[in-house]
């Protein structure tokens, strides 16, 4: 969701969305089979080939850490090595499914949905949800700093949590949304049924179709190997 991870030329957003669903569904469905690991490696390479190298590389340490955590928890719960490998493959499938989402600039997704005549309330809301993460992180940091300055005490105390964190945080959310709404309205956004222009329409090209077809072909091959 941060700008650093965005791909320079991401695939058509809805194809990216479909890719996430396909990888997730196939990865989880075939997690018990050993062949799935080759499929997941192939998907990672496929993403890398289509310009997702930043998020692909950033994913490696995060996926390794998560896999280690899940493997530990699963081994503690089941005492079975086979279960551990299944958990690792599941974790990798989830990590890879997240990849198109974190590499996609919010505005491209919104433009693609706008072209499909999705209601303005949904596209506008989605753009805000996608681009709000860094802002929210900064706000929480500021509130924590204010708490430290005032010597508010530990967050483990329910009273401190409520009075010094939750109330100021909610107040900040209200303030931010008011300012954001005003800013959005002055730029001519409205939720009614009025015609609007998309200045940079996002269209699916041959490259996008090849990307999706390659992924579908890989997924079908995996399903054939594992279940037929």
């Amino acid at each position, binding site marked *: 969701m941060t700008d650093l991870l965005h791909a320079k030329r991401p695939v058509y957003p809805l194809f990216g969305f479909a890719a*996430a669903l396909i990888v997730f569904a196939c990865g989880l469905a075939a997690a018990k089979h050993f062949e799935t690991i080759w499929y997941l490696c192939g998907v990672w390479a496929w993403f890398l080939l289509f310009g997702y190298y930043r998020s692909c590389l950033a994913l490696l340490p995060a996926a390794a850490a998560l896999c280690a955590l*899940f493997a530990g928890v699963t081994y503690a719960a089941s005492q079975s090595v086979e279960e551990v490998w299944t958990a690792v493959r599941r974790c990798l499938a989830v990590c890879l499914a997240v990849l198109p989402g974190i590499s996609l600039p919010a505005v491209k997704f919104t433009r693609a949905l706008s072209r499909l005549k999705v209601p303005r309330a949904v596209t506008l809301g989605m753009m805000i949800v996608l681009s709000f993460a860094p802002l929210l992180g900064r706000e929480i940091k500021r509130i924590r700093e204010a708490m430290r300055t005032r010597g508010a005490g530990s967050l483990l105390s329910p009273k401190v949590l*409520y009075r010094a964190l939750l109330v100021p945080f909610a107040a900040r959310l209200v303030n931010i949304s008011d300012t954001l709404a005003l800013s959005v309205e002055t730029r001519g956004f409205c939720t009614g049924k009025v015609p609007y222009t998309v200045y940079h329409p996002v269209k699916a090209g041959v490259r996008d179709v090849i990307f999706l077809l390659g992924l579908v072909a890989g997924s079908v091959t995996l399903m054939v190997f594992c279940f037929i």
Partner: protein
Amino acid sequence: MNKKNRVENAGEEKERAQSVEKVSAADIDELLGASAEESAESEEKSEQGRENAPKEQATERKKSFVKGGVRYDKNGREALFQPFTVKDVVFLAVIGAAALITSAVMPLVAQIPIFGLPQLVTGLQMSLFPTIGLMKVRKPGSVLLVAALVSVLELFMAPAMGVTSLVSALVIEAVNLALFRGYKKDAACFVSGMLINPMTLPFYYLYCLAFETGSVFFRAAGDSPWVAVGVSFAVLAVCAAGAGLGVLISREIRKAGLMKK
């Protein structure tokens, strides 16, 4: 003379009545947001004959209008389903983002084979933030809008959660309309906010039953049903606490003058 006067008076009265009718029709058209051309057309149509009159009346009856951001029904009363303004959408989106980001701990417990554990971990934030949103917006469909925004992102990460969030939001809206007819009362906001997370449990179970019988949670529910029941009650309790906190925080913010309509 008297007869002449009477005829003249009658003519004046007729003219007045016609002018009053015209003015009221124009006013109604304005309220309905119809253009001047449309109103002229409608007048012409009304003169065409009585054959079409019942149909026109029927279409006129169906019309509702929006004035000052509030929708009124055919009788001029405030309608049940209000349109969402930009301010509402932005606030609900911000609230949805806050709920989603603070629920990022969910993947850490995703592989622990206890049914309902992810819902338990995210229960507080997933009920607190939407309740604050409902307390401010107070329009039917708010839960559905938040769920739609959140579930699209969830679909990227966990399709099962995305689907179940949407379905449970639909059910919550139906329950709210049946019990409270909107979010005017704080109790309505509390109940809907509290149900958002626990409602996903039965739907998630059904989803697993249909598509993911090998899922960790599905097997956990089958292996130890009493643990699943206990965790489900714990989820309900945590969500009730979250929704209660949401109502309290909203009241405080409103008292401070920050939460304006």
